[in-house]
């Protein structure tokens, strides 16, 4: 079996998404990432990814990456834990994602959109 050539681009997407997801999850005030229904990254089947790279498919749920002319547009959907204003969390996630993608891939990030879908309330 050969990997379709057009999917090779998506391997880079997965690396970007993986770096972004890890950075977002580690940002103070983030409770969890919230998977959406659609995303370019999810279109690459996990099996295809593992065959192409020999690595386990990373947890990128909640992150979508769109490549435009060699630069990445990243979308992160998350829930905050309610301890820090959502606006501050969003700004911190943007900085962390840009730094992490720069450190782990050669893909420049054009923009990081952050959607806060839920703010956790004290139990």
């Amino acid at each position, binding site marked *: 079996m050969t990997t379709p050539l057009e999917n090779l681009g998506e391997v880079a997407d997965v690396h970007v998404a993986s770096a972004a997801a890890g950075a977002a999850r580690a940002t103070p005030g983030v409770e969890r990432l919230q998977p959406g229904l659609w995303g370019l990254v999810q279109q690459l089947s996990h099996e295809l990814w593992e065959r192409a790279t020999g690595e386990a498919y990373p947890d990128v749920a909640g992150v979508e990456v769109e490549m435009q002319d060699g630069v990445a547009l990243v979308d992160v959907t998350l829930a905050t834990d309610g301890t820090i204003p959502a606006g501050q969390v969003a*700004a911190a996630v943007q900085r962390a994602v840009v730094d992490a993608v720069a450190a782990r891939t050669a893909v420049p990030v054009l923009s990081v959109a952050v959607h806060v879908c839920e703010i956790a*309330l004290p139990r």
Partner: protein
Amino acid sequence: MEDVVDDLDAGRTDDHSRTCEHCATARRSLENLMEATAALVADPSEPPPTLLGRIMQAVRAEARRGDVLALEGAELGPADVSEVAVAAVLRFAADSVEGVWARSCHITVEPGSAGTIAVAMTLSLRYGSGPAEGLLGEVRGRLAAALAGQVGLHAHRVDLTIVDVWPEEEL
């Protein structure tokens, strides 16, 4: 036997049902059923503890995204928060005032004033919790604090409407 059911329901006995062996047997088996029914009402079987979480996971996965409110301060791309999430924070803040329950909460955005919203909330009050004036002032304070501390937005207008007053014992 259905007659015996009726008698048992009504707590009736007559000479026939006391002396007739068939009726006595029917009565015993119905009493047996009543005891077993009481045991079944006190059913010890509980849903698995993971069920609630699984239901909520399924609900979250298809939660309506709904409208979003732009967040200020993001520099590397757009940032927004779901209106529903902000409404939940505001209701919780109002609830934290003793004797107050938030009912509905609507948020609108002033065009061209990023980071500023208008809040319209309806409330239930418990009768005897104190003057409404004071309670509403307290609610306003909590809403402003929650918006600043948990969301990062500012309300230029907060409309509070009392739609219900509850007697103490019903809370």
